[in-house]
């Protein structure tokens, strides 16, 4: 049974040997040695790291920031924030070559992956990626949630990604939704789970929910694959044609992988 205390307990394990270097909470957060995972890691490997809240991807980093704040700055009110519009994705879009290189398109897609940061009562954010970059990243659009609720819900999403049984996968996502309602992360993952179960209408509903708040390339493309021509228009208006080609190729490659697996 998932609880907020269980998530706290798990995060505490990563707090060992970390002490604040300043009495100012933001400076203290900047003083943590934030490590980064490999940018080429596959979704499943990231999910495995997330199960242990390893602070190398944003779920683990968020959990570490949360437990650090609770332990050393208990008076400071914090929440978590799901990033709906990503500063680095916008920045990346503005610096891409014309035509864009495949590596640039992959980098843009990475910045559009689900992301969460720590948020303070006054609306300012702390994104651990700011530390490595040496700049204060403030995402233009976020949605705040009770911090351990969102961490728990995201943790369940990672469990669902690793779950092979299609029905059990959806059940985990239902738990995630109940634990922290209305995140786009859960909606995006539920769309995939319903698709696996062949429940296309439900998949479309979930994807529509996600797109309404976070209209990123992958969701728009998924929606288009499910027959929504309007999503295709939005996709081609916002992104370069080569990105659409890259997503098509990805689906084709996935399909080949499934066929090979089925034959082996």
């Amino acid at each position, binding site marked *: 049974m998932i609880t907020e205390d269980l998530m706290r307990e798990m995060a505490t394990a990563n707090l060992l040997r970390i002490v604040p270097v300043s009495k100012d909470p933001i400076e203290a957060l900047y003083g943590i040695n934030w490590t980064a995972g490999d940018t080429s890691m596959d*979704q499943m490997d990231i999910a495995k790291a997330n199960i242990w809240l390893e602070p190398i991807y944003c779920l683990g980093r968020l959990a570490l920031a949360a437990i650090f704040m609770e332990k050393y700055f208990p008076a400071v009110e914090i929440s978590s924030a799901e990033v709906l519009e990503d500063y680095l994705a916008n920045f990346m879009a503005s610096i891409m070559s014309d035509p864009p290189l495949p590596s640039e398109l992959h980098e843009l897609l990475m910045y559009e992956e689900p*992301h969460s940061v720590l948020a303070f009562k006054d609306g300012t954010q702390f994104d651990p990626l700011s530390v490595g*970059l040496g700049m204060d990243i403030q995402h233009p659009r976020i949605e705040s949630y009770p911090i351990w609720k969102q961490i728990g819900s995201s943790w369940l999403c990672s469990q669902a990604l690793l779950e092979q049984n299609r029905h059990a996968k959806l059940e985990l996502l239902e738990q995630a939704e109940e634990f922290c309602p209305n995140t786009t992360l859960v909606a995006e993952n539920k769309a995939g789970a319903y698709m696996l179960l062949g429940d296309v209408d439900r998949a479309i509903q979930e994807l529509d929910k996600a797109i309404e708040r976070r209209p990123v390339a992958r969701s728009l493309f998924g929606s288009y694959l*499910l027959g929504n021509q309007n999503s295709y228009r939005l996709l081609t208006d916002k992104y370069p044609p080569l990105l659409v080609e890259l997503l*098509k190729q*990805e*689906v*084709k490659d996935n399909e*080949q992988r499934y066929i090979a697996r089925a034959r082996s």
Partner: protein
Amino acid sequence: MSKDISQEPDLNRVAEILAAMSDEDRQVMESMMKAKDLATVRAAISQVCARNFSHNVGDKVKETLKK
């Protein structure tokens, strides 16, 4: 409450959607249709939707900010 998921997957609905989009993107879908395995198609599409946290900083942004 979620819909009863014990029902049979609606493969006809998937086929209908794929057929409807094939005029513009037949190239992508051709190989899928050749496979004649809609479960595979579903699984491939589901990969597009199911996402995870995987944010880090890539080379292009790093290099640009260094300049």
